[in-house]
C-alpha cells in the first residue's frame, strides 16, 4: 500500500497525475513537466514535499553528536541557519544527504530523503547509542507529524510576507520572511501552529521551504496558491522537481549518491569538513580527497539530435564503455538532452567528447561544467 501525503486530496482536485515514488503516491505533473519547470524558472511554483522526512535532534549533546555523525561542520551553524550535509558510513559511502538547521541553541531540524527515513532513523538511533554524548541527545522522528511544501521561483519573494506576515518568532527572530538570506530559517505562527520557513530549495532558483504540522499543511498550500495567483504560480510535480535539480546538478539520493558512493566521488566534497575532527567515514573521505577516488561524477549535454538520456544508459569514451548515466532528461530550459554520470577520473575532463548509448545506438555528447544550466 503506497503512502499518501496530507495533500493527496488537493492533488486529485488539481488533476495531478499520480505515480509511485519511494513508497509514496505523488503527483508527477499537473499540466506538463515543461510548463511547470519553466514557470518555476520564470516566476513561481509550489511542490508537495511532505514525503520527505523530518528528524529533531535536541539537547546539550546534539551539536557534538551531529558533528561526529554528519560530514559538514554543524558548529558553523548559528541559530536560524541551515547547511547541506551528508551522512556517511565507515566506508565513506553515503547513508543519506540532508539539510540540517539549528532552530534553537540546542535544537536541530534535519530534512531527510523520503526513501531513506527508516534507514536514517535506525542509523541515527544506533549512532546515538554508541556516542559518548548519548546522555545529552534526544532524538525524534517527526516525519509523520510534520509536512512540507517547497515554494520556488524568482517571484515567490513578492508574496511570501503575505503568507507569513511580520517578523519570525524563533530562528532568525524578528526578521521578515522576505529578508531571510539563503539557508536561513525562521518560525512563524500560522493558523494557531508554529511553522518553519527556510530560504532553501532544490530548483536552483530563489525560494522557500516550509515545514509545518501535517494538520495545517493543506492550508499553507491553498493559501500560497491563492496569494501566488498574481505571479501565476503553478502547482508542480516530481517531474519538474527532477528536471530543475538536474539542470543545476543537485544530487538525488539513489542516483548520484548511494551507500557505495562517497560525497567526494559525487562531486559534493565541498560539504565534507575534513578539518573539523573525527566523524564517520572521515578516514576514507580524507584518503579520496588526497589521492583521488576511483570514479568521478560528470555532467554532460547531448550535442546533436538525440533521444533524452536516461539513468542506466552506458557512457562511452573513445569507443570503450567508461561508465553509466545516473540522471538524465530533456532540459526544458536548454531544449536538449542533459545528464550526469560516473566515469574514471582520468576521463572526466570538461570539454571531452563522449557518447551515450541509447537502444543500441551511440549518440554524441560533451562533458560540461556544473551546473549544466545557469541563468543569464
Amino acid at each position: 500500500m503506497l503512502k499518501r501525503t496530507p495533500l493527496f486530496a488537493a492533488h486529485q482536485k488539481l488533476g495531478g497525475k499520480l505515480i509511485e515514488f519511494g513508497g509514496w503516491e505523488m503527483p508527477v505533473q499537473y499540466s506538463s513537466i515543461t510548463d511547470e519547470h519553466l514557470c518555476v524558472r520564470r516566476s513561481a511554483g509550489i511542490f508537495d514535499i511532505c514525503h520527505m522526512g523530518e528528524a529533531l535532534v535536541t539537547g546539550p549533546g546534539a551539536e557534538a553528536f551531529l558533528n561526529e555523525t554528519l560530514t559538514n561542520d554543524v558548529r558553523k551553524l548559528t541559530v536560524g541557519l541551515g547547511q547541506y550535509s551528508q551522512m556517511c558510513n565507515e566506508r565513506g559511502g553515503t547513508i543519506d544527504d540532508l539539510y540540517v538547521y539549528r532552530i534553537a541553541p540546542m535544537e536541530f531540524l534535519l530534512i531527510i530523503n523520503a526513501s531513506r527515513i527508516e534507514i536514517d532513523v535506525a542509523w541515527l538511533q544506533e549512532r546515538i547509542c554508541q556516542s559518548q554524548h548519548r546522555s545529552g541527545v534526544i532524538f525524534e522522528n517527526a516525519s509523520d507529524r510534520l509536512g512540507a511544501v517547497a515554494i520556488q521561483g524568482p517571484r515567490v519573494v513578492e508574496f511570501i510576507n503575505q503568507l507569513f506576515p511580520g517578523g519570525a518568532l524563533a530562528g532568525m527572530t524578528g526578521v521578515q520572511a522576505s529578508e531571510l538570506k539563503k539557508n536561513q530559517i525562521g518560525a512563524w505562527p500560522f493558523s494557531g501552529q508554529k511553522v518553519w520557513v527556510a530560504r532553501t530549495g532544490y530548483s536552483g532558483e530563489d525560494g522557500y521551504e516550509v515545514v509545518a504540522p501535517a494538520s495545517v499543511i493543506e492550508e499553507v498550500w491553498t493559501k500560497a496558491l491563492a496569494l501566488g495567483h498574481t505571479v501565476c504560480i503553478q502547482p508542480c510535480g516530481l517531474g519538474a522537481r527532477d528536471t530543475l535539480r538536474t539542470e543545476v546538478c543537485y544530487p538525488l539520493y539513489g542516483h548520484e549518491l548511494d551507500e557505495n558512493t562517497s560525497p567526494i566521488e559525487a562531486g559534493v566534497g565541498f560539504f565534507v569538513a575534513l578539518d573539523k575532527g573525527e566523524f564517520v567515514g572521515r578516514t576514507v573521505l580524507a584518503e579520496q580527497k588526497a589521492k583521488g577516488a576511483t570514479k568521478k561524477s560528470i555532467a554532460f549535454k547531448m550535442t546533436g539530435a538525440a533521444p533524452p538520456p536516461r539513468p542506466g544508459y552506458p557512457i562511452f569514451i573513445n569507443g570503450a564503455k567508461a561508465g553509466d548515466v545516473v540522471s538524465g532528461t530533456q532540459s526544458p530550459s536548454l531544449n536538449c538532452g542533459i545528464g550526469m554520470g560516473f566515469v574514471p577520473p582520468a576521463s572526466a575532463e570538461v570539454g571531452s567528447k563522449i557518447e551515450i548509448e541509447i537502444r543500441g545506438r551511440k549518440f554524441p555528447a560533451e562533458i560540461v561544467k556544473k551546473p549544466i544550466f545557469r541563468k543569464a
Partner: protein
Amino acid sequence: MSQVLPELKYAKSHEWVRITGDTATVGITDHAQHELTDVVFVELPVAGRTVKAGEACAVVESVKTASDIYSPVGGEIIEVNSAVSSNPALVNTEPYTGGWFYKIKLANQAEASALMDAASYKAQIGG
C-alpha cells in the same frame, strides 16, 4: 476531453490507423499524447522495413519516459514522417494530422478490419 475521430481505426495500445486502399497511415491518439505530454523525441522505423502487427517499431519520448509504439497492422513501411522527427511537438499539437508516424503497405487487410472502431476506443478510454 480527448478527441476520437469517427473515420479511423484504433488499437488497444492507443495507435490510430487511417486506411486508404491497400495502405494505412499510423499515428498515436489524442488521448495517448495527453497521457505522454511534452513529446520531445520520436524515433521512427526506416522505410522498407517489414513489421508484424503488434511489433514495437517506433519510440516516443516525453520528458519523463520512453514509450514503445506498436504497429497496429503488419506490412512494409513505405514512408515515414520526417516532419515529426524534426518537430516532435507535432505529436502533441496535431496527433491526427501533421503528427502521423508512418505509412505502411498492408500485408493483410483483415488485420485492419479487426481493429476497434471509434465507439469501442472511446469506451476503452472512458470517454
